[in-house]
């Protein structure tokens, strides 16, 4: 469960921060080019942040008390494989979700 006092600080701050990011160059008339190292790094933000966000939870899920769970681990691997193969986020979600529910039903 989310702590409500945390939520009420995070929401407005995240809203303001996200808006500031979007407004940054568009709002300031600026067509100043960014330095090359910076644009290069920005290209990798999503692939750098999202896997780190999920990897520990995939291997040691909180729902099983940190015990590695074959169903969740397989679902994660299937999601990744289908996403790479099809280049489709939706196909990957469906395949991963399907795998998870099928395995949980089998082992449940």
């Amino acid at each position, binding site marked *: *469960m989310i702590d409500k006092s945390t939520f009420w600080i995070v929401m407005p701050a995240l809203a303001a*921060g996200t808006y500031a990011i979007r407004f940054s*160059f568009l709002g300031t008339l600026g067509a100043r080019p960014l330095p090359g190292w910076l644009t290069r790094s920005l290209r990798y933000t999503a692939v750098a942040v999202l*896997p780190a966000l999920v990897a520990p939870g995939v291997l040691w899920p909180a*729902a099983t008390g940190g015990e590695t769970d074959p169903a969740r681990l397989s679902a994660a691997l299937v999601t990744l494989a289908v*996403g790479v193969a099809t280049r489709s986020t939706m196909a990957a979600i469906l395949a991963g979700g399907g795998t998870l529910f099928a395995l949980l039903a089998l082992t449940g």
Partner: protein
Amino acid sequence: MTPHRTAFLRGLLAALPMVVVVGPFALLFGVVATEAGLNVAETMLFSVSVFAGASQFAALQTMQENAPVLVVLATALAVNLRMVMYSVTLAPHFGELPLRSRALMAYFLVDQSFATTMAEIDRRPAMTAQEKRAVFFGAVVAVAPLWFLASLAGALIGRAIPPDYALDFALPITFLAMVAPMLRSLPHLAAAGVSILLSLLLAGMPYGTGLLVAASIAMAAGAGLERWLEGRRA
């Protein structure tokens, strides 16, 4: 039809296929947010004020892990940093428009409106700034109302789903599904690999700070490898 109206329609039509991803994604956000303990009003306020799906999911996940506010914010904002590039790329095309136009566009600057507008500018570079703006808002109309409505539907459904449905795993699956199609080059693969490896090694660091260290080094690894590969080709 005026050139503005046709530009608006072109944006709308070009962005229409994206509803297939946006709708379910927003629905899922509504469900996961209410499962995490937010009520319908809080979920909607979150979606409307932040309006950036991946970072909203990231904030939900880190808040559920009881990470401190600063770590939650750093993680969620890091997910949105790619939009700096969007802002930089769009700026020269819209610089002549009034500030309130650009301020409104900034709020609606998401993956879909950006991608649609840039593709259309590529196809018709002679468009005026006003026509480009019409394309942008055409794309916005295709995805933004759906984002809000589907979030609401998800929040209402989420209250009806019993908690024992393994929904804890909806977030990891969604994030992996978003990342997988991005793994199209060696540097992207390297960044994701470093990210996974370090986040596991550093999982013991307090307050989710291991994630920030892992992500920073992974970003540098991707950028560094890209630079090195370019250097070799040159």
